[in-house]
């Protein structure tokens, strides 16, 4: 029996690897994606284009201007002198924000020491991408805060009664690359596993070779195992390669337990293979197989918390994410890489994936038998 399954697996691998196009699809694109997306996926901003609209021209406003000029995150593209110049710059996205220093800014700042007169600084920002706008505003605010602190200190004014002392655990510099890059392992492993398994049976059905398989001494369970294992093995190999690139090239710290990570990967691939076979047993043509794979992969990635947090979704959608195996693997990846987690903390992520995998495999084997005889 083992020999028969082994022969089938060898045949599956040959079918995948002998065609140079299929072969290159298995290796090249995932690597390119990892590198490109690893660099592209970031919410940090740099070289924020801005314009200064300074109506004051006093010494203090010059100092404030200099703070922005000296900041590496901001890049001044224009200096304007009239209100009506603001709109064209922002509309055409030449600048993300305009810093408007009003008339008598310096004067009011100097005279306002003990009174309640404050010097206003207006920031006009392009809100088309609200997240970018929010991040940029936070940067501006921290520059202004810094300026204020220094100003008060120089003038011996009493400090604020309370101040914030912030730090971040697990990712002290708040690099979003550390958040995204480990997640890409899960995303790519899912795509390849589902594609390989969802297409195998559909291809044989379409080409009529499935009937030939059925007249061999192989039993349905053995055929299924032979179809399932290649996807699983390819996912394992690809996952390992990407894991190496993530740690060696992107230098994301891997603090937690590697066995726990591999245990997670195995359970995750098991559920992936199960769902792939489910799609495969339902699909009659390759096109349907591909579509089914696609209809599963896209929501699975979107709802996994890969790019946007699950906590932000409406409660109903959050409930749906519970049947998404990638959701659990994302948590495992990030907790093992950044938080140094081991088996004890991750147990709540392991069993749902095992359950999803077992359920999908059981259902697909039932379907296999039903659609065969």
């Amino acid at each position, binding site marked *: 029996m083992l020999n028969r399954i082994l022969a089938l697996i060898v045949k599956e691998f040959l079918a995948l690897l002998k065609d140079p196009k299929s072969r290159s699809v298995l290796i090249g694109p995932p690597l390119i994606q990892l590198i490109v997306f690893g660099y592209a996926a970031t919410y940090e901003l740099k070289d924020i284009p801005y314009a200064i609209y300074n109506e004051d021209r006093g010494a203090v406003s010059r100092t404030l201007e200099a703070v922005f000029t000296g900041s590496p995150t901001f890049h001044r593209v224009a200096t304007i002198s009239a209100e009506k110049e603001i709109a*064209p710059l922002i509309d055409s996205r030449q600048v993300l924000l305009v810093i408007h220093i009003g008339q008598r800014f310096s004067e009011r700042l100097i005279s306002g020491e003990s009174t309640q007169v*404050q010097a206003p600084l207006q920031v006009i920002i392009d809100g088309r991408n609200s997240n970018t706008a929010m991040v940029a505003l936070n940067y501006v605010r921290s520059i202004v805060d810094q300026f*204020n602190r220094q100003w008060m200190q120089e003038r011996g004014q009493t400090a604020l009664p309370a101040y*914030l002392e912030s730090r971040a655990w697990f990712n002290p510099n*708040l690099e979003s690359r550390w958040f995204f890059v480990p997640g890409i392992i899960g995303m790519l492993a899912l795509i390849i596993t589902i594609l390989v398994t969802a297409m195998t049976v559909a291809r044989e059905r379409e080409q009529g070779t499935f009937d030939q398989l059925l007249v061999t001494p192989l039993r349905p369970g053995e055929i299924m195992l032979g179809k399932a294992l290649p996807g699983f093995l390819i996912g394992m190999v690809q996952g390992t390669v990407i894991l190496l690139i993530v740690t060696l090239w992107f230098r994301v710290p891997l603090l937690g337990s590697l066995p726990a990570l591999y245990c997670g990967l195995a359970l995750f691939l098991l559920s992936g293979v199960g769902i792939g076979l489910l799609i495969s047993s339902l699909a009659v043509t390759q096109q*349907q197989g591909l579509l089914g794979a696609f209809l599963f992969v896209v929501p699975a990635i979107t709802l996994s918390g890969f790019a946007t947090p699950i*906590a932000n979704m409406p409660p109903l959608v959050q409930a749906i994410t519970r049947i998404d195996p990638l959701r659990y693997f994302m948590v495992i990846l990030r907790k093992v890489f950044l938080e140094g987690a081991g088996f004890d903390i991750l147990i709540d992520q392991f069993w749902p994936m095992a359950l999803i995998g077992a359920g999908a495999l059981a259902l697909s084997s039932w379907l296999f038998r039903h659609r065969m005889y």
Partner: protein
Amino acid sequence: MITRNHSRHLAAMRLKSLVRKEFLQIVRDPSSIAIAFLMPLFLLLLFGYGVSLDADHIPVAFVAEQPSGDTRDFEASLLGSHYFAIAPAPSMPEAEQAMREGKVDAIVRLRANFSERLRRSDGAPIQIIVNGVDANTARLTLGYLEGAWGNWLARRAASNGKDLTTPVQMEQRIWFNSEMKSRNFLVPGLVAIIMTLIGALLTALVMAREWERGTLEALLVTPVSMTEVLLGKIVAYFVLGTGGMLLTVGLAVGLFDVPLRGSFWLLWTCASLFLLAALGMGLTISTLARNQFVAGQIAIVGTFLPAFLLSGFIFDIDSMPTAVQAITHLVVARYFVSIVQTLFLAGDVWAIVLPNALALVLMALFFLGVTWRKSRKRLE
């Protein structure tokens, strides 16, 4: 004269029946219907509800090591904000444990001497620890906590009969999306993603299937020419894609309440250009791959994922490394995402629309040209 008219008439008839054949094929294959009509609906609902960057009710552990009127006052200012869901924790180790288990995303700690130091000249520290794994949410959380802290200081000063004087007061005006709803920029971008799927993925699959099964060769032994076959496909899927576009734009405005400030007709025109480019991509992929598995992989990896990650749909292009920025210029969706975000939220800004529309025209011509040339050559 008569014969020329006659042949032109024949050509029109051939094209008409080819288009008819494509439509029949689409209507009779449930999977094509799924991509063309159910998929846009499904994706729009999925992304519209599933993708959000607006953090709300962030779970925060609050530790007051020695509760007093001051700590309760500060806690009240956090409780009043819808950004936080405050979970009081009796001590630091418990709060840290909650953070490790992922039950809270931040800890706010007021030390035992908080009230005392509040009245000293150097001020009292408020310790904040955020879980930095999700850097963006961590940054938002810090920003919201800063806001709550500022409000608390101002209120406290006011109740003591003083005004809180900050030398420079920052005043922000957010254009186009004053409520800062991430849905307002994500949903317009979805129009681009969904049209990429219909245009590129569906055509890539359909055409690859014809190559694989040899039905394309069968068609070509009839009097129809390759150009006519391609034209028939383009017309059929163009109509489908336009339907998908109208559906998504309608839902964006009707269901998700995204304002459409620009001209609808301009949006339609640009969408048509984009659709042509996407169809061209799909046809190019299928002509080069001629195999459904490979065509499907390339369509997902080469069109869908770049449209998602490299188009400015979620991630800011200007902040990517220079090399990646150069690659984004090859992503057709990039130009359309810029157009739709502007047309929806800002209005008819010609400085954005014209250059991007021009890029779409060039891309469409390029991809359709490649398909035309390649499919001619590959038959011989």
